[in-house]
C-alpha cells in the first residue's frame, strides 16, 4: 500500500513535470531581456523553496523527536534533510548556469548565493555527522540538536550576508513582476517538483526504516551469540 502511494506520487510528479516542460520550452515565449535562459527560473526558484520547506520539516521533526522520542520523527528529519540538500544543490547549480549566461561569471559572492551555500554546508555537516554516531538513540538526539542549531543559523546568515554584499536580481515573486502565464508555469513546476521531492523523501524514509530493522536484527544476533 505504502509502496504504491510512493510510486503513484512519483509518477504524478513525473507526468506533471513532462507536461510543464512542454509548456516551458515550447509554448512560453522568450523573455524580452534575457532570451531563452530565463527558463531556468522554473527550476531554480522552486528548488530553493522546496529545499527550505524540507529543512523546516526536518526542524519540526527534530523538535518532535526530542519531545516524544519517536524514531519515526528522526527518520523523517534525516530523509527531509537529505532531499533538501539535493534541492539546495540544484538551486546553486542552476543559478550558476544562469549567472554564466547573464553576468558572464559562474559564481559571485552575492548574499543569496552565499547564504544558500552556507546552508548546504550546515546541512552537509548534519549528514556527515550522523553515520559517525553508532548508538541509534544518541545519533537521533544529537542530530536533532544539530538540526535546531543549523536552522537557527539560516536567518542570521541571511541577514549578515545581505548587509555584506548584494548583486542578485530582485525577487520577481515578491514584486509581482512575472506575467500571469509564467507565474502559473512556475507554480505548476513547483508542485511537480514538490511531488517528486516528497516521493524521494518517502523512498529515503523506507530505506531508513529498513536500515533500523537491520541494525536491531544485528544487535539481536549479537546478544544471542
Amino acid at each position, binding site marked *: 500500500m505504502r509502496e504504491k502511494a510512493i510510486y503513484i506520487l512519483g509518477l504524478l510528479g513525473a507526468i506533471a513535470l513532462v507536461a510543464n516542460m512542454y509548456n516551458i520550452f515550447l509554448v512560453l515565449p522568450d523573455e524580452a531581456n534575457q532570451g531563452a535562459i530565463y527558463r531556468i527560473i522554473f527550476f531554480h526558484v522552486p528548488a530553493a523553496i522546496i529545499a527550505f520547506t524540507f529543512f523546516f520539516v526536518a526542524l519540526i521533526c527534530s523538535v518532535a523527536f526530542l519531545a516524544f522520542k519517536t524514531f519515526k520523527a528522526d527518520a523523517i528529519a534525516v530523509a527531509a534533510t537529505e532531499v533538501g540538500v539535493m534541492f539546495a544543490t540544484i538551486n546553486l547549480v542552476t543559478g550558476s548556469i544562469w549567472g554564466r549566461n547573464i553576468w558572464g561569471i559562474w559564481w559571485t559572492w552575492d548574499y543569496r548565493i552565499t547564504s544558500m551555500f*552556507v546552508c548546504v554546508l550546515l546541512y552537509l555537516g548534519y549528514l556527515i555527522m550522523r553515520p*559517525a*554516531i553508532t548508538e541509534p*538513540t*544518541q545519533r537521533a538526539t*544529537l542530530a536533532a540538536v544539530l538540526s535546531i542549531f543549523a536552522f537557527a543559523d539560516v536567518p*542570521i546568515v541571511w541577514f*549578515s*550576508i545581505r*548587509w555584506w554584499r548584494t548583486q542578485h536580481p530582485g525577487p520577481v515573486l515578491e514584486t509581482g513582476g512575472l506575467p500571469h502565464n509564467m507565474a502559473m508555469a512556475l507554480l505548476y513546476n513547483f508542485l511537480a517538483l514538490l511531488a517528486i521531492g516528497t516521493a524521494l523523501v518517502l523512498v529515503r524514509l523506507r530505506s531508513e526504516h529498513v536500515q533500523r530493522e537491520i541494525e536491531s536484527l544485528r544487535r539481536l544476533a549479537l546478544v544471542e551469540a
Partner: protein
Amino acid sequence: MNSFGAAVAIARKDLRSELRSKEATNAAVSFALVILLILSVAFEPTGDETHAIAGGLLWIVFAFSGTLILNRTFARELQNDALEALIAAPIPGWALFLGKATSSLVMMLVVEVVSLPIFAIFYDVSLVWTLVPVLLLGTWALVVVGVAFSALTVNVQLREVMLPLLIYPTLVPALIASMILTGNLLDGQAFAGDNLTWLRLLVGFDIIYTALAVGLIDIVLVG
C-alpha cells in the same frame, strides 16, 4: 554549592589543569604562529591590500587555532570516565556548560593576547583599544558554538574532524561581523553607523547561541 558556584568550580578546575599541563594553549599559540607565517606567504604582509584584509586574517588565525582548544573542552574529561561523573554530579547542565565555556574563553583570550602583538609586528598594523569589545564578543561566539558542538561530538568517531566541519559554517555570521568590525577599527574608524549594526549582529548572535546552547545542553549530555 549553588549552580553558579559549580560553574566557577568547573572553570577553575579546567584552568588549573591547563596551567599545569599547558597542552591546549601551547598547541594553539604555536598553531597561531604557523598560520601567521603561512598567511604572510599568501599575501604580501606589509602591502596596502593586506592592511585592508588584516581584520579577516586575524580572525582566520583565531578561529583555526581556537579549534585546538575547543576540541579539548569535553574530550579532556574522557580519561577515567570523568565526563560521566560530571554529568552525574548534582549540578545543572547549564552550569557545566558555562564553566567549560568560561575556561575556554580564558584560554582563547590568552592565545589572542599572545598572538595580537606578534600579528601587529608581522603585518605592520597599529592596534587600537576599541578592538577589545569586538575581541570579547567574537571570541564568545567562537566559544559558545565551539563548546556546545564539542559536547555534541565528544562521543562521536572522528571527533577532531567533525568539530571544525560543524562550527565554521555555523559561525559564518559571527565571523563576518568580527572580520569587518576588526578591519574597520584597525582602519581608524569609530563605533558608528555600519559598525554599530555589525556590533549589534554580533551581540544578537551571542545571545541567540548562548540561549540555545544553555537550553539544549542537557539533551546533548544526557540524551
